[in-house]
């Protein structure tokens, strides 16, 4: 039924004729014989069930899987009714026999179920029809320039996204779909937190393949291949026949610098070339430790709770006798209060710990020609791909209790992932030593470039180290002037400061929990300088820069002259930075060639360059890793 919403393309090849009778046949089958149905579908699914125009449907189980909570609740309610009735009729027959004239004989009680069974069948049929229709009308296709998704039956929706607007592509395996071997492909554009386009659900292999295709189109590799198709000895063909260049991920961990993670070194297996080079893994032990010791983790919460309890206890202990009610002692009040807070607190601790563990479990970071590849998750596995040149900013943090252990956390700002440092998908390193941080930085952050003054002699790695750990003017930073410390910066004035290099703005902060924010000048969208009444008296001002996707980086309370200079400087750079204009495709043919060349030795020697750089000083230089994509002419 084409509605007014129907758009210009109304080419639905023949769903209407079939749509009449198919649902009735198909629906019960989908429900009652799920396994076989899934198996059936998989046969057709891997074989690209596309029509003449390239439209592909999702997996037929999609609607069932998507509404699994609803189905589970329904099943539970119906099942409970059923069981209760049955129990009643079997054991309670004598008791209820008196009410109904027809007694409690066997056949009669089965007759009693008939309406219920009828209703259940009706509901299932109805669901089947609705689900079938929603499945039938939901389809996608990949064209040369964009991804298209159509859905809806009464109200139709048609969404397109151009490859050059793509910010990230993620593959998700939530728990229930995972049981059926299904996955979702999420395509992000720079529109804030919403997922621009979700292709869910597809068979795992198919999803992988779709993601690959989208990435190839977006990076320009697909175009390149098309050009190379005529000379048969082109690069892609070579890669396809001999996928040797990439090392297997189990041999690469040597590069991760954490010996406990090295898997048994077998023969390098030939793998899909998408896998890329394994940069690091987060071992379970470290993850558990980091979650326990994080700023919002159990330890911090317990310490806070103990402090609160102490203060409250002090108050109760010192309060006058007259405030006590009948039968109350000071101890009973304290005990009651503690118990009252302990339960929700425990609940909060358990949930936050669980979510931390669940998300960070098995966290691996790979580097491939598509940029950074992250894989993580326990019940819901995610595999994210952040193309190079799509990272807007980087934040390194160190919780207070992580300091003795030398652990850090790295987050990136990607326009498609939405605002907030806590947006879960922005995490590229949940916890790791400083070497891991540097390794990640080589990919997500460009060379800092030339710094002024003191920092000029520092290597990039040293600069980052000083920026994270130093205070006052270490590394050439400008910090909050001493005179302004009374204005809410008693503890942090030494640390809160900034440094500009030729390419980056580095902002450090936090006295107890350290923080370093890195923004590339040319990615700054707009900026502001603010000063309130007190700040003006103290002759200081705040400078805030905004990055795409809503992230803000604020340099607080700097000397006014310095702040104004920074403002002028950044606004100038932000205004004239036009270089990124033509970077919609991040893999030009030359870059692709260079990238494959760079991977060659890494693969041949299995673990040649990276550990070599690793061994001597334990502080790898930032240039250690392959950085083919972050360098731009």
């Amino acid at each position, binding site marked *: 039924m084409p509605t007014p919403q129907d758009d210009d393309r109304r080419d639905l090849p023949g769903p209407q004729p079939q749509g009449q009778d198919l649902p009735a046949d198909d629906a019960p089958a989908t429900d009652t014989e799920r396994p076989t149905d899934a198996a059936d579908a998989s046969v057709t699914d891997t074989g690209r069930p596309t029509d003449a125009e390239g439209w592909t449907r999702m997996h037929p189980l999609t609607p069932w899987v998507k509404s699994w909570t609803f189905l589970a609740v329904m099943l539970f309610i119906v099942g409970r009714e059923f069981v209760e009735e049955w129990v009643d009729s079997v054991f309670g027959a004598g008791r209820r026999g008196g009410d109904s004239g027809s007694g409690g004989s066997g056949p009669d009680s089965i007759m009693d179920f008939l309406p219920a069974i009828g209703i259940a069948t009706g509901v299932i049929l109805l669901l089947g029809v609705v689900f079938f229709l929603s499945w039938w009308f939901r389809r996608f296709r990949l064209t040369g320039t964009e991804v298209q998704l159509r859905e809806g039956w009464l109200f139709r929706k048609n969404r397109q996204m151009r490859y050059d607007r793509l910010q990230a592509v993620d593959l998700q395996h939530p728990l229930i779909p995972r049981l059926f071997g299904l996955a979702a492909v999420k395509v992000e554009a*720079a529109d804030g937190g919403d997922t621009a386009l979700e292709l869910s659900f597809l068979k795992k292999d198919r999803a992988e393949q779709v993601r690959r295709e989208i990435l190839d189109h977006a990076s320009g590799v697909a175009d390149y291949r098309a050009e190379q198709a005529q000379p048969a000895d082109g690069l892609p063909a070579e890669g396809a026949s001999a996928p040797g260049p990439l090392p297997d991920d189990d041999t690469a961990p040597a590069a991760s610098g954490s010996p406990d993670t090295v898997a048994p070194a077998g023969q390098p297996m030939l793998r899909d070339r998408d896998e890329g080079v394994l940069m690091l893994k987060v071992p379970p032990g470290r993850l558990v430790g980091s979650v326990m010791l994080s700023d919002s983790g159990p330890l911090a919460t317990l310490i806070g709770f103990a402090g609160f309890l102490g203060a409250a206890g002090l108050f109760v202990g010192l309060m006058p006798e007259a405030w006590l009610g009948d039968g109350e002692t000071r101890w009973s009040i304290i005990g009651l209060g503690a118990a009252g807070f302990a339960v929700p607190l425990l609940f909060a601790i358990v949930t936050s710990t669980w979510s931390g563990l669940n998300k960070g479990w098995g966290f691996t970071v790979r580097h491939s020609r598509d940029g950074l590849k992250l894989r993580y998750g326990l019940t819901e596995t995610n595999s994210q791909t952040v193309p190079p040149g799509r990272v*807007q900013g980087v934040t390194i943090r160190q919780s207070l209790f992580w300091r003795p252990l030398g652990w850090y956390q790295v987050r990136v700002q990607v*326009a498609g992932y939405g605002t907030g440092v806590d947006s879960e998908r922005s995490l590229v390193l949940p916890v790791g030593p400083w070497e891991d941080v540097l390794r990640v930085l080589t990919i997500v952050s460009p060379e800092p470039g030339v710094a002024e003054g003191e920092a000029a002699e520092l290597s990039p790695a040293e600069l980052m180290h000083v920026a994270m750990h130093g205070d006052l003017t270490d590394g050439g930073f400008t910090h909050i002037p001493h005179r302004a410390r009374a204005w809410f910066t008693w503890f942090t004035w030494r640390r809160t400061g900034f440094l500009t290099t030729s390419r980056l703005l580095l902002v450090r902060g936090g006295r107890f929990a350290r923080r370093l924010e890195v923004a590339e000048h*040319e*990615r*700054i*969208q*707009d*900026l*502001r*300088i*603010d*000063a*309130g*009444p007190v700040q*003006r*008296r103290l002759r200081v*001002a705040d400078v805030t820069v*905004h*990055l*795409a*996707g*809503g*992230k*803000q980086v604020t340099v607080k309370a700097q000397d006014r002259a310095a702040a*104004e200079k920074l*403002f*002028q400087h950044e*606004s*100038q750079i*932000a*205004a*004239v*930075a*036009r270089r*990124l*204009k033509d*970077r*919609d495709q991040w893999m030009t043919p030359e870059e692709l060639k260079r990238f494959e060349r760079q991977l060659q030795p890494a693969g041949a020697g299995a673990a040649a360059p990276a550990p070599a750089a690793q061994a001597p000083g334990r502080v790898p230089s930032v240039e250690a890793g392959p950085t083919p994509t972050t360098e731009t002419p």
Partner: protein
Amino acid sequence: MRAMELEGVEFTPVSEREIPAQLVTGVVGTLFFVGVTAVPLILKLTGVWAGLWDWFAWGLPGAMLLWGLIDLALIPRQVRARGYAEREDDILWREGLMFRSVKAVPYGRLQYVDVEEGPIQRRFGVQTVTLKTAGADLEMTGLSKAESERLREVLMQRGQARLAGL
């Protein structure tokens, strides 16, 4: 201490007509809130809620009125503190009396430009221009109609010419 003065930047003030526009809006708003907060007082005077404390019944609308008056008194100065400056590659917007700020939006980062006017603004011939980037919005309130039209044209042109992407 003077406003934030960036070296060599001349700010063009917004339209003076914004002052009466804001005053009218402010008066309407103040009357509305005074009216709402006067409800307990009316209840007390009509005897429905005779037991209400005097200080509360009179104090609530009184405080609201005072607040409104102070706000109104500051409007002219607040409006005069606003201004914009077109530079070669970006546009600056200055605002705030107590809490001063200057914002910069490079032309090349503009995603789109909105021009809006409310009913009161329309009577006084002033408009609000909103500049949208991928990072944040910049609202420039109180530009005269002619000026906002011109700005919109010019900004979009420059945005096209200097497109910088994300």
